[in-house]
Structure formats: structure tokens, C-alpha cells
């Protein structure tokens, strides 16, 4: 699989640019991943979403349902799209270093 440089590290990514090793993630990696999503600067609001996703993932090994993400962070779905144009699953989860979700979703 292709390797790309994020935060000064060479990290394996899938076809859609999701990093393959969640442990390779750090904040600098997130900043570079954000750029691939058209987010030039990670603001406090961006971090709020990304940090919550990251924490949830580390505890549960899955992404929270989008409804829970909205409720916990206080952002409406539209606001999350404003922050991450590809949306919570493809955009925010990617920046948080989570794998791409598969299945009946």
C-alpha cells in the first residue's frame, strides 16, 4: 500500500487516504491529514471534533455514531460539514486517524 508523509513520518494510507496504522497518529499527522481534506488550519473547533473521535476510538475501537458526535461536541451536523467538507465519517474520522468505516453504512 502507498506510503505518504504526514507530520514528518512516512505512513501507509489506503486508496482514500485513511492512515492504516492508528498508532502512527499524532497532532502533527492530524494537521497534515486535515490539509488533504481542504482544512488548512485546525481551529479549536476542529480539534474538539477530532479529539473526541480519537478518544472514543481509543476506548471503543470504533467511531461513535454521528448523532453521538453531534450531541457530545454540541455541533450540528451542518456545522461539522462546515468544519470538515467531506463530513464526519470521511472527513473528520480521517483526520482523527480512524479507519474507513465499512459494512451496511
Amino acid at each position: 500500500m502507498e506510503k505518504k508523509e504526514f507530520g514528518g513520518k512516512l505512513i501507509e494510507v489506503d486508496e482514500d487516504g485513511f492512515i492504516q496504522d492508528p498508532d502512527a497518529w499524532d497532532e502533527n499527522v492530524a494537521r497534515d491529514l486535515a490539509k488533504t481534506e481542504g482544512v488548512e488550519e485546525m481551529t479549536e473547533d476542529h480539534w474538539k471534533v477530532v479529539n473526541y473521535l480519537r478518544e472514543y476510538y481509543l476506548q471503543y475501537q470504533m467511531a461513535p455514531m454521528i448523532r453521538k458526535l453531534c450531541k457530545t461536541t454540541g455541533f450540528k451536523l451542518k456545522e461539522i460539514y462546515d468544519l470538515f467538507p467531506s463530513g464526519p465519517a470521511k472527513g473528520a474520522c480521517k483526520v482523527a486517524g480512524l479507519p474507513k468505516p465499512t459494512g451496511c453504512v
Partner: protein
Amino acid sequence: MPTPDEMAYYRQEELLEIDYRPPERGWMDTPVDFRRGSYIYPGKAKMLEILGLPNPRDWAVTDEDWKLPDNWKQIVLEGMAERLRKYRSFKVFMDSCVRCGACADKCHFFIGGGDPKNMPVLRSELLRSVYRKDFTALGKVLGKLGGARELTVDVIKEWFYYFYQCTECRRCSVFCPFGIDTAEITMMGRELLGLLGIYVNWVIEPVANCYRYGNHLGIQPHGLLDTLEFMADDIEEATGIRVDIPMNKKGAEILFVTPSGDFVADPGIFTCMGYMLLFHELGLDYTWSSYASEGGNFGLFTSHEMIKRLNAKIYAEAKRLGVKWILGGECGHMWRVLHQYMDTVNGPADFLEVPRSPITGTVFENARSTKMVHIMEFVADLIHHGKLKLRPERNDYVRVTFHDSCNPARAMGLLEEPRYVLRHVCNHFYEMPENTIREQTFCCGGGAGLGTDENMEMRLRGGLPRGAAVRYVQEKYGVNRLAAICAIDRATLVTVCDYWAPGVKVTGITELVANAMVFEGEHERKVDLRLEPIPGMEGEQESEGSGSDE
């Protein structure tokens, strides 16, 4: 700028310029064009390793070299010979097609794309031509003249492209005078590709997840509990009722199994909340399972062996927990596996009892062997016996149509129950045109593991016939909701509707049931399960009257 995996990339006028004329060269001489948006990423090496599948490696569809084993041809031909011996149906389907073409214009991918190799007859010929060459005397002698051709790497690539452009929906089979089940041909094609380590990741990762964790999404027990508890919070907000979450409860009467999409994906989660409320109100002695936490079975899209491996988990768990029978949720292909494979591959489930509704006493004779009842059968029976207190006027803001999911409709014949339930919980139910529903229902365009975004062009093309029928009832009757009893539908039809019939939202039926149900001890219902205000319910407005059902 949108990319080919995004809906916005495709302009409707361009997609609708469908050229049904065949290419100038013969089909055997027309190579596959792998363009972005029309194929699915290959299975990752890691997933194949988890499942013990052959030839794990990382590769790309657009690579010239697919890194096949040196003896790939021998593997495929031996695999074909083995399956021709093992599956009588496969041999009959290979031999009996007279190429009458009755199926040709019945496939949603052909209708929406115009590629002749998506005529089911020709898609089958991709495999049949190799069968003729290597397994029939006539084909050996006549060669290309007799419709036979040599198996080459290009043929393998063509198989990959088109067997993953078939959703195994079986609409074409309804029209075949010989009853050839084209889904089974696709399944054989995919099995043969699998022998070479050729899978798509959208299928094989869920399979690997289900194998390890019990569900396609890889949800682990604490994650499942957290998710259901969150739903219980939302339920409380909407109704004032706190529901229990019985998990892995030994000795429960009923094991409930539903597709894992219902745990996380909008709008399936609202149907999941509906199940929880319904069971609470009935006081049902049931349990969720964190091991059998998947109704779906992506083994169906992989191989017969994988169907068996994944299906076995549900029955092993039923045995371990000591339940009497199994209740299944709103899933599509789960029911094809249950009705047409389970009994042969893992049954009969003699250790369970013939399902009997503890509320009405109805014995589900149709589930005598599999011991598994569909939630729509269960609910229709409850309504029939007057066991649910319903206020359908709460759903008066919903003008709903029903999409028959391919497998419950064609593999199970579940046509009346969902309609019966819908008519009792909604006052405004409208049917789509008759050649697009019931046995003739059109696929969502994303079943059988094709519902991933990198396949967006094919999903939109395949979704065109369904989307057009939805648009029709939207314009004619003001339909604003599409109900479907399948998690793949609830995921993929959102895109189909957004594209072809914008404004129509997707729902499961149990969501509408729970919105109409009156629960003991509920507070005033001002919002629905989506926590959106129920129009007209603030002031107890009169219902518009009885159900209309054009």
C-alpha cells in the same frame, strides 16, 4: 472540486445520456475500461490473512499485474470443475440458457448504464464461454464460433469488473423462462475469483470483522452497549420511557439479531430504537448478543464456505444462551441466507423450538426449520391480534412509499406483511408503479457489497430505475419518505434519493411503528424518534382520515 466518489461529480444530464447501442467490436474483443467511480477497491492483504484466504497481497485494480499465483489458470479451472460437480444448479445454469434475452433489459445496471455486459445473459456468458471451452465437447471443437473462449488474465479482469457490477438482486431471474438464477452465477464467479485472492474490500473487511467480532463493523461488546445506551437516552427524551438493554442474557426466550448498520448508521438507528421500544412495551423476554451482533452475512457475497462460517455464529449463540427461538430485524440478504441456505449449511436447528409469539400464541409454521422469524411477520401478527395501541395520525406528516428489498421480496416472499404494518401505522401510503415493486422490485443499486462510495457512478446508474419510481410517487402523491426493511437499503437509498428524488428521506418500518405506538407511561409525544418535532401534534390535530393506497 468533487471527485468520482462523490455524488456531486456526476451531472444528471450526462448520466442520462445512455447509449444502448452495442460497441462496434464483438463482446469478446471489447476490453474492460476501469474508470474511477465504476469499480471497487480490492480486498486488503490483512483481511485475507485474518480469514485464511489465498494469495493475500496489496494490489490495485488499475495495476497491470494483479499478482496472481503462477498456476492461476489451473486453480480457476479446477475450481470450476469442483463446483460443477458439487452444485447441480451451476451446471444446469451453464447448460440451459438459450440466450433468448428475456433478462436483457431487466437489470438496473443495464437500464442505467447501457453496458451490454450488464445484460444478465451476457454477464453470464462471461463465465459460460469459459465453461464451453473447457467443459463441453462442442465448445472444444467449435471454439469461438460456438461461443467458447480461452481463459486469460483479461477474462479474469472482466469477471472482476462485471461480477462486482451485479447486486445479486435476482430481478432478471423473475423473467427467465428457465428460471436461471443469475445471482448464483455471480456467486460462482466471485468464488472462482476468490480462489486467486481477488475480493473487494467493501465485502471482505466486513467479513473479517464479522468473523472476529461478530458484526460487519467490528463493534466490540463495550462499544455495542455504549451505542445502545445512547439510543436509550434518545428514546427517553422522545417518549419519557427508559428501556432496558438485555445483553447476552442466558435463558432469555428470544435472541434478537439485526444488521449492525442499525447500530450506527442514520437512519437505521431510529429503527433500532423502534425495536427497543416495541420489545419494552411488550415486556418481551429477549436478549441482544454481542457475539451474534450481525444479521447480515457478507459471506453471501464471498463464497458458500463463508456463508456457512458466519451464519453458524448466530446458531452457536442461540445454543449457548439457551433461547427458544430467534427474531430477526430489518435486514435484506440475511433473509436469503436464512431461507435458502441456512437449513442446508448449518441446519436444522433442532435444539431450538418452533417459534411461537408469547404475546399472541401464534406459531410461525413457516419458520419450523430455521427457527427464525422476521420482525415484520412478528409485528403484523401483533397488529392483527390488536396487541398494539396505535395512533397512525402521529405519522401524518409522513407520506410514505415502500421499497421491496430484493431479498425479503424475492428470496422470502415477504410482500404483504410490511404493507400490512405500514397501512396500520401510517395514513398516507402510496405504491410505486407495479413493475417496480414486489417480485419485480428494483434494486437500490448498492447491494451485494457494491454500496461503497468509490463505486459511485455505478451506484447512481444502478439506482436510476428505483430513483425514477420514487420520483414518480413524489411528484404524483407528494411522497416524502421511502420505507425499506434492509440496512443496505437504508444506507444506499439515501444517496439514490438525494440524487434522483431529492427531498425524499429513507426510513425503516419499525421506526414508523414506534412513532405511531402509544406506550404505557409515555409523556406527551412532541418529537419523533429523530427528536424532530411532530407536525400537528402540538395541538392534537385531527387525522386526515383513512389510509389512501393508490
